[in-house]
């Protein structure tokens, strides 16, 4: 294996208000655009058209990755994956409340 070391890199943090191209999102989540469209229809993510480019908020990526993994690994469909994610998020929220006190 060839090893190369480069200098220190500055990271750019993507937060609320940053959008990335849907094509990139598809590649990063390994899902096809049709699935992203379905997730948008199911209300999991918002999307917008800017200068002919279809974009998604950067903050949506972690949730999209989870639902795409659930679909791929467990054989559930898009609605099932979104339902599972929403329930998982609710459980986490309740656990947080329960852990508070």
């Amino acid at each position: 294996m060839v090893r190369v070391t480069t200098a220190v890199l500055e990271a750019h943090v993507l937060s609320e208000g940053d959008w990335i191209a849907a094509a990139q999102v598809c590649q990063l989540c390994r899902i096809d655009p049709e699935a992203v469209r379905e997730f948008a229809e199911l209300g999991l993510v918002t999307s917008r058209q800017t200068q002919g480019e279809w974009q998604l908020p950067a903050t949506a990526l972690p949730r999209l990755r989870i639902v795409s993994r659930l679909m791929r690994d467990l054989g559930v469909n898009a609605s099932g994956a979104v339902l599972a994610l929403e329930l998982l998020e609710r459980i986490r929220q309740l656990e947080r409340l329960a852990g508070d006190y």
Partner: protein
Amino acid sequence: MEFRDYYKVLGVERSATADQVKTAYRRLARRYHPDVSKEKDAEARFKETQEAYEVLKDPQKRAAYDELGSDWKSGQQFRPPPGWDGAAAGHARRARSRGPDGDAQFTDEQFSDFFSSLFGAEARHAAGARRARAGRDHHARVELDLEEAFRGTTRTLELRHPELKPDGSVELRSRTVRVNIPAGVTEGQLVRLAGQGEPAAGAGAAGDLYLEVHIQPHAQYQLDGRDVTVSFAIAPWEAALGAAVTVPTLGGAVAMQIPAGAQSGQKLRLRGRGLPGQPAGDQYVQLKVVLPPADTPQAQALYEEMRAKLNFNPRAT
């Protein structure tokens, strides 16, 4: 390397039908899926399950695996037999077979050496590498603790890319990069490193690398977005009469006034003391009144006196 009994991993007989294999995989995948499971070694079990399914769902790979015979036991030292051609089975399917999450190049989440020796490891990366095109974007996770998220930190990452050599073979290239992660990243947030994804094949632009930030649970602080909550024990008289106290925050201890008449469970806000950002998060101090034990005659007398003199019914509405 150690032999892996894929039938045992999935809990099926060697004679199991394709449907039985699929059902067994689905059941285990649901149980151990890292996004869902609370089992202790869920991730390792899930990977093992996926690897077993990868082989047993594919008639060619399964036939090749079965050729090894049924005498092998899990964990036994294993070397592929001379003239082994199982790699051909892997090769034939390589365009479709991928690691668990496509992140294999970064996170070492590859299948076991045992799998690689039978079906070839590099084969998985080779597909699609032949055309000149822009490098793909890549994605990896970074785990930070809460203090690192608060202060910012530097992480050293090892990135791996398959690279096509002129003779057509594929070589795994490894680069080490140091990344400055700024203060105030939160759970699930993305960080972009331009041009650090897959290098272009031919004349395209290199892809970007996206890091997904995960913050490990903290013993003392609960994180919610940029806000943190800390549980804070106080004595009944501090709650009743008010008190000046020092509370821990991520940036160091600060003085805080507990108002008179505070109740257990009440939250006090320290504005801007959460994770930094625009705007910075707040810290919530959740009060928890701890009663002194009535384990001495003196303490009992004090409680008795309160009972006699306070005329207090906590259940009165």
